[in-house]
């Protein structure tokens, strides 16, 4: 089955080596764990840990004042291949990590872990960190969601975007009241400055294309309620699901490519409905004033300040603060992909990735999940293709379909091999090729089972044609057979 190998290095800083090490440093250790998805599918995770002590340069880096500086200094000294992890263990009393924080996860592929006294405590903590930074049982189960027996997976799990070869991102500005607001948004600049770095980092995962549009007179489908206390308009949480549909028809997302489309909408409310706030389930206003829908995209409401004097001439010119908007949209993009930072234990401190949008280990997280998902998809596709071909015996397989199937099988085998060697990048590329080939083979237009006659249709067509004609023939045949069987009659006497 599939074995996920994570090469890890556990580096002990000075004064952090626990007393009960089984062997002197450096030594290698392997921890295996089986993640069982259903009776027949299971994934083994294997953390190959190299325990060693710090080199001189690393010690100097660890002597920095804050964890962030230490991480930045350690970055060039690490093995930065995709999928690998490096953990630096600092002494329990170290001041590098703030009070109450036991783990600091940097924005690359390393973490600073506070020693926990005994080896067992340290190993437990290391395991937790490794799982956060690579994959957990639940993230693997979510990636293999169609194999999980029903009932075990809640219907809300795995609503992240499925692994695809490309994604299309559309930014739309909705201005329902152009008479009151002239909205200017520098979307090109914002995409270049804020979105491109994130997409660049994600370009390993898939191809992204970005477009934008402005829609006028596009209203939300819901009328917001006026709240006297805050003298503002409120959209309650349960009316949000009905907001999207009336707008969707005007977004033109069906004219785009065949890749999944992610829509990010910026809505500037009408003068008569300003300011507009979104309420969550408990009635509190949402700080981001935005909400998102899994596998679809997100909507943010951008309130325009009321003009200083009521006699200000309409339309008001509005310059959208693109940085604030992009902060929300990029956060929504991360959530749509499943990169959430909310389930991390409290004693962890996660470094913000800044303008890159996601940390290296979050990229790895995505790649692990997508690789496993791709491999599972390919095996399901090829199995069902084989079943289809078994059922319809006389289907004709074209040569290119056959070559795609061979290529898919070869790629998926190489993906599994690369995973067992710990080469995440190569495994992901191989799994992408495998998915492309298998989809092309399965969805080839020539495999329509309708084009191949089932046997009962053959009978239904030919029997009414040939049966009436065959009746005299068969009767004559029977007569012939009877004649030849009778003993030859005595030749009549010829006179």
């Amino acid at each position, binding site marked *: 089955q599939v074995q996920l190998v994570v090469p890890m290095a556990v580096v002990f800083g000075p004064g952090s080596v626990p007393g009960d090490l089984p062997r002197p440093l450096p030594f290698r250790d392997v921890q295996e764990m089986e993640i069982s998805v259903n009776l027949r599918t299971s994934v083994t995770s294997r953390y190959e840990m190299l325990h060693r002590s710090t080199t001189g340069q690393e010690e100097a880096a660890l002597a920095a004042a804050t964890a962030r500086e230490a991480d930045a200094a350690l970055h060039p000294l690490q093995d930065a291949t995709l999928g690998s992890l490096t953990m630096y263990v600092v002494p329990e009393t170290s001041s590098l990590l703030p009070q109450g924080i036991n783990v600091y996860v940097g924005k690359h592929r390393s973490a600073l872990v506070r020693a926990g006294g005994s080896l067992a405590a340290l190993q437990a903590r290391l395991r937790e960190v490794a799982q956060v930074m690579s994959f957990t049982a639940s993230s693997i189960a979510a990636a293999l969601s169609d194999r999980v027996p029903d009932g075990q997976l809640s219907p809300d799990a795995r609503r992240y975007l499925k692994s695809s070869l490309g994604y299309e991102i559309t930014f739309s500005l909705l201005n329902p009241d152009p008479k009151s607001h002239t909205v200017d948004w520098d979307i090109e600049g914002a995409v270049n*400055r804020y979105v491109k770095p994130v997409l660049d980092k994600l370009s390993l995962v898939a191809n992204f294309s970005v477009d934008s549009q402005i829609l006028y007179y596009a209203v939300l489908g819901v009328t917001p309620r006026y709240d006297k206390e805050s003298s503002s308009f409120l959209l309650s949480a349960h009316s949000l699901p009905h907001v999207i*549909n009336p707008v969707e028809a005007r977004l033109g997302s069906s004219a785009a490519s065949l890749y999944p489309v992610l829509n990010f909408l910026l809505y500037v409310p009408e003068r008569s409905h300003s300011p507009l706030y979104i309420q969550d389930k408990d009635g509190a206003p949402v700080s981001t004033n935005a909400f*998102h*829908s899994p596998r679809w995209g997100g909507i943010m409401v951008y309130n325009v300040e009321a003009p200083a004097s009521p006699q200000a001439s309409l339309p008001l010119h509005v310059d959208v603060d693109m940085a604030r908007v992009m902060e929300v949209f990029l956060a929504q993009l*991360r959530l749509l992909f499943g990169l959430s930072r909310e389930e991390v234990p409290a004693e962890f401190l996660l470094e913000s990735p800044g*303008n890159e949008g996601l940390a290296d280990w979050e990229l790895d997280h995505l790649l692990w999940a997508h690789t496993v998902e791709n491999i599972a998809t390919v095996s399901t596709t090829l199995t069902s293709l084989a079943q289809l071909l078994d059922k319809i015996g006389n289907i004709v397989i074209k040569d290119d379909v056959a070559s795609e199937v061979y290529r898919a099988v070869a790629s998926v085998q190489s993906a599994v091999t690369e995973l067992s060697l710990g080469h995440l990048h190569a495994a992901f590329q191989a799994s992408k090729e495998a998915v492309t080939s298998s989809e092309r083979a399965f969805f080839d*237009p020539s495999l329509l089972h309708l084009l191949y006659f*089932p046997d009962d249709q053959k009978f239904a067509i030919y029997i009414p044609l040939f049966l009436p004609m065959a009746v005299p023939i068969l009767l*004559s045949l029977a007569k012939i057979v009877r004649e030849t069987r009778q003993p030859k009659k005595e030749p009549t006497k010829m006179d």
Partner: protein
Amino acid sequence: CCGPALAGGLQDQAEQFFRSGHTNNWAVLVCTSRFWFNYRHVANTLSVYRSVKRLGIPDSHIVLMLADDMACNPRNPKPATVFSHKNMELNVYGDDVEVDYRSYEVTVENFLRVLTGRIPPSTPRSKRLLSDDRSNILIYMTGHGGNGFLKFQDSEEITNVELADAFEQMWQKRRYNELLFIIDTCQGASMYERFYSPNIMALASSQVGEDSLSHQPDLAIGVHLMDRYTFYVLEFLEEIHPASQTNMNDLFQVCPKSLCVSTPGHRTDLFQRDPQNVLITDFFGSVRKVEITTETVSLDRDVAGFESKFPEEELATEPLKYAEQLPVAQIIHQKPKQKDWHPPGGFILGLWALIIMVFFKTYGIKHMKHVF
């Protein structure tokens, strides 16, 4: 302190358990008849199309297959309209009907291609069913049917086995989360007898051996406008709005035998959830799951232009030319293609040998001289 929160949490979990796990909705609406006297089938399909759009499914998620020969038919006394209620109360054709497969494109092959996804790469996006494993799909079919088959445009038919196989192909590729199949034809229940894939719920307007009847003729237009079952389903759907909580059990009760004359049937054994918990809007509407965004990314605002790590390569493309659609010069001067001659196959040879042998055995070989 924890009491109400805990109870709230449990209730949330219970709600979650009964809710469907879909994130998008699709509808495939097929009218399999053509010709003026089958007006009611087109009106059926268009009425369901209207309801589905009203409840929120956008055109990009609806695949509408119609022969579309009613509105502009020379026999239509009110051109550009298709009415569903007598006295011409409701024009279901309207201004914004988006028919994806029209006229002769409504074939069994195209229908199965849409369902299974085995579509030629040149097909536009509006003609594809781009559903995924979180899509709830509504499939509505109407036309003339019989025991185990449904007639397409008077020239071919689709059998219940083929339909069941197509659904199985969809399940194998996880092209749906849950599927609702509604059929309004004579002996409609025979079409869902053979389904064997999970998560399918089926409704039919009549049982095997019964005919589905039409509802009301309109004397000005001269044909029957709607079928009974769809008419009463539509009256039921008129009460539904996007936020309503009506469930499938109510849909099963629509059109009892007194109103419909035929006995509507349904099949829920393949469906995982209890129909009591399935909302009508799970299939007919498009209610999105939304989540409040609580996180933000912190961006450094003073960043200059961005140099991509992977500079885009300028692909040297040829200047685009208009593709020759019809190579007229070649066609005009073409000589007829030599068809390769194949000797007659074994079956024909054997048949003729048999016939000749029997003839001459019966009548004697001496008759040969009369032949030559």
